């Protein structure tokens, strides 16, 4: 019976967007309130349906009573349940920060809900063309939200993102076209059997795989297809950066996982090992280059953005290796990265609101003045580096275990080295925050400062007004840090919950 409620996961935020516009006619606060209510309801719905899917096995429904493969099928298994819940929870949490940080306005809230619509749609659909439609909704909403910063810079970044994103989605569509050409069907489950019948070494199937992977890898921002991403993250409003860094690429990577294992199935990799090797190599390069680029950044948000390039490399390596442990590790890292990176972007936003600091150097001495914010950020960074027992370690452990079991030694080396690569940029920041003399912007944000020899009042009016981080931002960052650790501690429970799903995915 809960099957029939699946379309609601998409309809609810879509309807919410309409409602938000309607409420916005009354007042902007009403729009914000509607958005909050809708996302809370979405969280409840996703949690409920997700738990059903985990406990009683996958839910599926043909929309409008048209059965698959003729109609569009929506499917929620353990994996999509996890992504759905992540989308709902993170968007609700970030909204708390967005209401005080972002440009606001009715259009902003409506677009925010449309982004959730697109992401939820991508997570629940069982049809490859339907996925394209939601990919584009997600894209459109993201471009607009990036540009909502209102600066010229953000408009340029959004346009660049739009051009890249459209080409990526078009390549995905071309891949769908090849698959359709080879099989005549669009339903994922149906495609799995039809593609096998068409023969995995058929040029059409290979081309479809190649275009779909390249398209989604661009959306996921793997090197060298990442070039839209740092600008977009850096120039978006801080809350939007947090939202898209946590969710947009995450769901794209989820889609990649879904297509590789539900549509192409492990048998495809068996038949065409070079496809797997290419994907692994591609992602491994992304890990290394992303980190190197992150080290060279002076701006915090850009550094975090390049860090994502590297971290998604790790995720894709895991899912490409394709042993149960590696795929589970990829999923854990996907979820964990969303939490950690989202928290870090919120922290970056809160710091910018507080002190105006946006570069690594300006972060100097931050933790002395704002110990809780600094401490929670440091926990998130160390979690990202892979210090146990946080979730960053758990993901890395499973991916590495999978790589070693699969005997992919060079990949194992890259995965292990990724710890040090990640350390390279985060350690620098931690050092600045904790044990460097305070920067001017940090000094300006606090009264005088401990050293007392700089009379900060003489520095003139400083842009930031607050002297302590907003309670919401602080709660989000601390919350993210706590979740990152808790998720790492309960990772085996997550493993138990997702085991049937992953076994099904990986069964030939």
């Amino acid at each position, binding site marked *: 019976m809960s099957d029939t409620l699946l379309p609601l996961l998409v309809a609810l935020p879509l309807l919410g967007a309409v409602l938000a516009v309607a409420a916005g006619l009354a007042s902007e606060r009403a729009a914000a309130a509607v958005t909050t209510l809708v996302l809370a309801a979405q969280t409840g719905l996703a949690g409920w349906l997700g738990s059903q899917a985990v406990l009683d096995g996958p839910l599926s429904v043909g*929309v*409008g009573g048209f059965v698959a493969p003729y*109609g569009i099928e929506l499917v929620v298994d353990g994996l999509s349940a996890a992504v759905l819940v992540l989308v709902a929870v993170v968007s609700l949490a970030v909204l708390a920060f967005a209401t005080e940080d972002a440009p606001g306005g009715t259009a902003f809230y409506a677009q925010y809900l*449309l982004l959730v619509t697109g992401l939820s*749609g991508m997570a629940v659909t069982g049809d490859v063309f339907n996925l394209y439609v939601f990919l584009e*909704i997600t894209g459109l909403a993201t471009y607009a939200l990036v540009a909502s910063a209102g600066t010229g810079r953000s408009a340029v970044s959004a346009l660049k993102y739009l051009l890249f994103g459209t080409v990526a989605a078009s390549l995905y569509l071309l891949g769908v076209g*090849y698959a359709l050409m080879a099989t*005549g069907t669009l339903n994922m489950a149906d495609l799995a059997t039809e593609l096998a019948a068409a023969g995995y070494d058929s*040029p059409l199937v290979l081309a479809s795989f190649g275009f779909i992977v390249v398209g989604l890898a661009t959306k996921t921002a793997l090197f060298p297809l990442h070039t839209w991403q740092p600008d977009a993250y850096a120039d978006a409003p801080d809350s939007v950066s947090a939202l898209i860094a946590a969710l947009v690429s995450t769901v794209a990577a989820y889609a990649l996982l879904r297509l590789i294992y539900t549509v192409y199935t492990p048998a495809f990799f068996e038949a065409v090992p070079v496809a797997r090797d290419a994907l692994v190599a591609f992602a491994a390069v992304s890990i290394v280059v992303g980190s190197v680029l992150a080290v060279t950044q002076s701006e915090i948000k850009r550094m975090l953005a390049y860090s994502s390039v590297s971290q998604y490399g790790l995720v894709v390596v895991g899912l490409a290796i394709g042993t149960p442990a590696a795929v589970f590790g990829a999923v854990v890292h996907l979820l964990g990265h969303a939490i950690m990176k989202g928290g870090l972007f919120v922290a970056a936003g809160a710091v910018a609101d507080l002190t105006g600091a946006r570069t690594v150097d300006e972060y100097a001495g931050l933790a002395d003045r704002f110990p809780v914010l600094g401490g929670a950020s440091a926990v998130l960074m160390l979690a990202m580096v892979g210090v146990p027992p946080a979730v960053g370690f758990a993901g890395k452990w499973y991916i590495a275990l999978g790589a070693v079991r699969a005997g992919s030694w060079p990949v194992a080396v890259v995965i292990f080295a990724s710890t040090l690569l990640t350390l390279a940029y985060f350690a620098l920041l931690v050092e600045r925050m904790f044990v460097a003399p305070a920067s001017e912007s940090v000094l300006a944000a606090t009264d005088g400062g401990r050293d007392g020899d700089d009379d900060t009042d003489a520095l003139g009016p400083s842009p930031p007004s607050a002297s302590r981080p907003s309670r919401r931002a602080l709660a989000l960052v601390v919350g993210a840090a706590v979740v990152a650790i808790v998720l790492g501690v309960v990772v085996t429970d997550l493993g138990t919950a997702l085991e049937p799903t992953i076994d099904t995915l990986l069964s030939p």
Partner: protein
Amino acid sequence: MSLSVPVAVVLLFMLGSALAAAVIRDVVGSIVAFAGYSFGVAVLWALLRAPDVALTEAAVGAGITTVLFLLTLARTTVTRSDRFEGISLRSGLAVVAIVVTVGATVPALPAVGDPSAPILAGDVSQYYLTNAYDQTGVTNVVTAVLVGYRGFDTLGEVAVVFAAGIAMLLVLRREAFV
């Protein structure tokens, strides 16, 4: 079907106008060439027995899109030029990469109009053709699939348009909303 003269002419026209849109630096000229190209595409689709799509393309591709381009020019600036675009290493490489990878698959594609191709002979298309009228009562199967079997796509399509509208508000009329 082997290549017929009308199709060949349309294809050549499309190619020519697309190429013109590409190389002309003059933006207005490029837009005009693009409109011509879109029109060519619409005609091609009519010839390929896709009247609904042809109509939409004529209205949306050749019509609305062109208007949008011109409106944009009206609100920004018109770059006049009587020169052509050059070619750089970057674009050259990209073009070669695309032509080689996509081109390599062409021999493997079923011939245009081959009735045994999976899309035509496959279960899904045949199911639509056989059952659409009985199940939906609509004689045009394209419409039946659009609003019936794949209605969820159409909902998504509506969401896309909605999102685009909101996006325009966010991007252009920001001041009014803040």
